[in-house]
């Protein structure tokens, strides 16, 4: 009987341990965010934010000194014009770091949700969307300028964009918001057919593009939120679209990659790639770079021709980033945290973060 009792207590303790482990693992699920300046790449890669030398691929610094396993960093870091690196964490804090040393300048702690999308930096303001349904505007000293005068209907996972007059963002609740960039007041709100997981992108002629989880690329008029057009993809669209002034580019879950003309000048085209497309495509001059879940990085020109796949160990969920002549990709589940490719797709270096 004592044995039975011990077995039962042991099982309950086991359950406590398993549930504890499960909780930690589940809350930490996302993929890295990357940015770069002339010297370093900065990667929010789970327990640390790393600075990596672009020439050598060697770690310059990491933040914090002790791994933040329970409160990881996945939001794309962003640089300010006055030399700060702004990065949000799953612990609800938004940090300003010194890009040279990794030293903390300040932290903003008023948000109540995770920082999933990167911030938008303008000449004098940091606009930050949080999973607590709010848009925050901060000065470069980390002081709150305003919180949006309303609460959005749902969590905001994508970064905001701005045309100088308004700030635009989409929510998981299928809404697109335009907010006055100076006051935080709502200008308009528009409902689309599916949750918006990525960031919107601004196009010419007062047009805003958003991709939806229901598989639509929706263009809206930035003046009044009116829907101009809907393009249908073959499956859900996770990433925000990208644009090069001629076409708007977006990928879907089936690996279908689309170019839709924004003006009369462009021609629509599609490319079937291998693997689900999660990250926003990178437009680098006349080259388009797309990462897929199958661990392929595709280079193609802006007409959809000359498609060159490059294999990288791991799954590519993060948006590729251009850093000078290098293309930076951050695989998930591979040996490397960051891989630098040249324009031919050859690996220049890889960084493990260990």
């Amino acid at each position: 009987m004592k044995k039975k009792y011990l077995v039962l207590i042991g099982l309950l303790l086991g359950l406590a341990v398993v549930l504890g482990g499960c909780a930690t693992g589940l809350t930490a699920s996302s993929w890295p965010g990357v940015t770069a300046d002339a010297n370093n790449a900065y990667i929010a890669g789970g327990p640390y934010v790393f600075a990596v030398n672009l020439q050598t691929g060697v770690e310059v610094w990491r933040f914090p000194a002790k791994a933040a396993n329970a409160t990881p960093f996945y939001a794309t870091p962003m640089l300010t014009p006055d030399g700060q690196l702004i990065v949000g964490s799953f612990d609800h804090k938004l940090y300003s770091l010194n890009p040279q040393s990794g030293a903390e300048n300040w932290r903003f702690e008023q948000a109540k949700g995770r920082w999933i999308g990167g911030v938008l930096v303008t000449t004098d303001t940091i606009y930050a969307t949080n999973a607590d349904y709010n848009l925050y505007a901060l000065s470069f000293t980390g002081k709150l300028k305003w919180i949006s005068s309303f609460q959005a209907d749902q969590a905001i996972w994508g970064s905001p964009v701005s045309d100088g007059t308004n700030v635009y963002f989409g929510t998981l609740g299928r809404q697109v918001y335009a907010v006055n960039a100076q006051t935080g007041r709502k200008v308009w709100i528009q409902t689309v057919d599916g949750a918006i997981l990525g960031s919107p992108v601004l196009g010419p002629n007062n047009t805003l593009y958003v991709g939806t989880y229901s598989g639509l690329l929706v263009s809206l008029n930035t003046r009044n939120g009116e829907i101009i057009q809907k393009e249908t993809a073959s499956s859900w669209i996770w990433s925000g679209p990208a644009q090069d002034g001629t076409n708007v580019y977006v990928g879907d879950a089936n690996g279908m990659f689309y170019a839709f003309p924004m003006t009369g000048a462009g021609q629509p085209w599609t490319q079937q790639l291998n693997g689900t497309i999660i990250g926003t495509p990178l437009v680098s001059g006349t080259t388009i770079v797309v990462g897929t879940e199958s661990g392929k990085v595709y280079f193609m020109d802006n007409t959809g021709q000359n498609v060159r796949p490059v294999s990288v160990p791991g799954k590519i969920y993060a948006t590729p980033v251009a850093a000078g002549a290098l293309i930076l990709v951050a695989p998930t589940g591979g040996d490397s945290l960051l891989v630098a490719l040249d324009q031919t797709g050859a690996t220049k270096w890889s960084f493990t973060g260990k």
Partner: protein
Amino acid sequence: MWETIIVNPFTNALLLIYKLIGGNFGIAIILFTILIRLITHPLMASQIKSSTKMTEFQQSKQWQDIQKKYKGDKEKLAQEQMNLYKELGISPFASCLPSIIQIPLIFGLYQSIMRALAATPGQLLILTRVVYPFFHLSALVPLNSQFLWMNLGQPERIYMFGVGVPLLAIIVAITTYVQSKVTMPASTNPNDQGAMMNKMMALYMPLLLGYFALTFASGLSIYFITGNLIGVAQYALLGKVNWRALIPGYKPDTTVLVRNK
């Protein structure tokens, strides 16, 4: 394997209920718990039967005589106990089997709740992959995680004067204690190790589940509370609830036990 057999079906069942009832995840968890309890009811009934048999066995004169006879010989006592179990058709583990079955269910449900609520991009990506094809997930996402005052994906607190009070954890602990007490088989034998174990469990389980409720997503607490209340109801339906066990200083009525024998 675990995912395919437990977590994915649980997640899809939760989503199906959520869809059918018009988008209330709290109610979906309650209905799901009732469903699980209905499915495992035969096991529960078997547990109650075994517990009753075991209590009767502990009280029986035959067993007490054997205990006296082999007081100094533990090996022989254990052998005689097993022989008596066999003779009376008692399985010593039948009474704890349903409790053990609850463990994977709790674990699976916790994973399913967290997965279905998908509070991070990684969780949503996994959800997208595990949802059965007939679901139109994009029409469901994001799930409404609010239920009453709670965010079901987060541990629950009610803030009073700036202090977070874990009301749900307290309710979990109380309902677990009540369930343990009122469903505990009465025993008058001071050497009844089963009864001692039950008493220990009645103390430990509320603390343990209360700790879970304090630490983990409040959706799990909804499962615990619903499960406790249904558990009491199941015992009541079988006429095995002893409300007097809640009275401080309560001692089982030996005449009733004798009469039952």
